């Protein structure tokens, strides 16, 4: 089933929210207003949003260190995300997570793991939980091509297949684990093909084409809700920026500038979907208005973040335990 018109607009809006959020975030990071490391999702918007559009709000999700796109794709408010990037008290994680961990549980995300492959068992556990609780919730797990070589991938997919858990394993294959290409790290290059070894369907889609990602994930979600088990989806996508904003890799030995330029100019998922919208009769003026509203929303989020207070160091231990032990005995 394809996205209807209103879903298509929403999908475009979410991709644009990721793009503008990341552009502004990168700028603020470079200007020194965001501490830590910054991994932008620019270029991977269709793989993220196409997947999220097939989910309900209450469906669980896990993600990765490249975490900003996931909550935005699932529909999270931008204010708490931007405030988190700046380490503010109003941040979605109260300033305890930061750029690699923008998890918003109000849209179902239980964690964004900066340990590569770390979220795969967690999402599998969400699937097990849904099955035990007899709900029709599903869990979607984002991970990269690098994570496929972790043991957690192997162990988790085996368990999900064994028990027919409602999990969608969504590989954002952007071709490189930092600088290590799939060709240099995978014994055989098809990630989708690995599914066969676990006894589950494996689907490879063009991750730059929003509709293709959506349709594949939607089919996998329906299958999962019917109790028929997990699916592995490999979305072939591309990271437009360096692994991390500001990272300088001398002579760029792992991917050529031409390759990056080619993807930026001919394989931009937002430009490609914008064209689809226009072909379907959505007016240019409507799209422009939508884009402007996103720009305004991001500006508002930045303003909120900048005006927000920093966390109080006296609250350092807050959120460590749910029921802190009262040191009554001391």
């Amino acid at each position, binding site marked *: 089933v394809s996205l209807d018109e209103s879903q298509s607009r929403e999908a475009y809006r979410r991709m644009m929210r990721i793009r503008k959020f990341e552009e502004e975030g990168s700028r603020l990071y470079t200007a020194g207003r965001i501490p830590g490391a910054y991994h932008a999702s620019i270029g991977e918007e269709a793989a993220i949003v196409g997947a999220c559009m097939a989910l309900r709000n209450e469906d669980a999700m896990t993600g990765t260190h490249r975490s900003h796109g996931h909550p935005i794709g699932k529909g999270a408010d931008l204010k708490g995300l931007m405030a988190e990037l700046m380490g503010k008290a109003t941040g979605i994680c109260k300033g305890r997570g930061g750029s690699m961990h923008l998890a918003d549980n109000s849209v179902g995300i239980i964690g964004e793991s900066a340990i590569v492959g770390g979220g*795969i068992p967690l999402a599998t556990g969400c699937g097990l939980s849904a099955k035990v609780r007899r709900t029709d919730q599903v869990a979607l797990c984002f991970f990269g091509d690098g994570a496929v070589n972790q043991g957690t991938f192997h*162990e988790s997919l085996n368990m999900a297949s064994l028990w027919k858990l409602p999990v969608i394993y969504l590989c954002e294959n952007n071709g490189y684990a930092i600088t290590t290409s799939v060709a240099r790290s995978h014994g055989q290059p098809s990630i989708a093909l690995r599914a066969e070894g676990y006894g589950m369907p494996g689907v490879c889609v063009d991750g730059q084409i929003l509709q293709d990602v959506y349709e594949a994930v939607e089919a996998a979600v329906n299958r999962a809700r019917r109790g028929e088990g997990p699916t592995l989806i490999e979305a072939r996508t591309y990271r437009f920026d360096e692994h991390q904003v500001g990272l300088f890799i001398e002579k760029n030995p792992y991917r050529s500038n031409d390759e990056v330029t080619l993807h930026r100019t001919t394989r931009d998922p937002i430009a490609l979907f914008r064209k689809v919208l226009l072909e379907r009769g959505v007016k240019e003026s409507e799209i422009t208005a939508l884009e402007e509203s996103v720009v305004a929303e991001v500006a508002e989020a930045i303003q909120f973040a900048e005006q927000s207070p920093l966390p109080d160091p006296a609250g350092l231990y807050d959120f460590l335990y749910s029921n802190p032990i009262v040191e009554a005995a001391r």
Partner: protein
Amino acid sequence: MSAQAARAAAPASKEVQHVRMSYLDAIVQAQIEEMERDDRVIMMGEDIAIYGGGKIVERFDANRVWAMPISEGSFTGVGIGAAITGLRPIVDLNIASFVYLASDQIINQAAKLRYMTGGQVQVPVVFRVCMYYGASIAAQHSDRPYSLFLNVPGLKIISPTSPADAKGLLKSAIRDDDPVLFFEDTKLWATKGDVPTDPDALVPIGVADIKRAGTDATVVAISGAMRPTLEAARTLEKDGISIEVVDPRTLKPLDLGTILRSVQKTGRLVIVENAHRIASMSSEIAAAVAEEGLHMLKKPVIRLTAPDVHVPFSPVLEATLFPDAQQIVTAVKKLL
């Protein structure tokens, strides 16, 4: 008579009813009661039908008791993910050395997710870790690795020594909203004791217990070290020496107050445990007492631990590794 039968037969009374059972049976009973009380409690582990688990497998359907493939590094995470999304799993990691495979998920996910999400999620999961040693099963099956996890914020670690404490603390752990590591010393599995039959009788996490009151020296005994310590206490008593035996029960967060109060009274401290010496629970207690109670000590602290060497296979080599009652007697006498 089983605990269930004992409870059913007991007259309605506010008096606490007890039944005599082993440490291992107390653990099984705690799990059965909590699984009956709360549908969200599930059990996961390899070969869970053995070591008392058979009673649980018989009683609950497959949706509550999950037999795991050999995938400690991931089924641990499955338990964590399930805990975050509405269940309260008991993840049985079986032999303690396997916890290393699971440690990434325990440390990087279970311990950190509540904090890293600013309290958006909670991780009510219990990890059962069984410490086998002294059985000629060599170094890869004989570890007592709780010390490694003491250095991880966000975890709670329990290691009770009596059947009643095992039941009460495990029940508290299952009802707790944070990840709890339960290090069972299999040397204690056969220990018998009176256990409350009340399914709501809990032993709180973070509170130590005086297992034997005394005046001449404080002996803090951790986990399986309790058995030789109590034996030493009886021997010393014959010589007119009275030791106070403190059982921390919870290793993290440690109830230092109870230990300090005892040291205040006796002025002498011996710490006994079966983990390796370096950066052990004993090290932590000795350091904390030095910081907060040095003025109370009449003599230096003595630590009795396993040495900094792997557990060897040959019985003759392994026999000397763990502190015994005689060593504890000698250590106490040295302080007097």
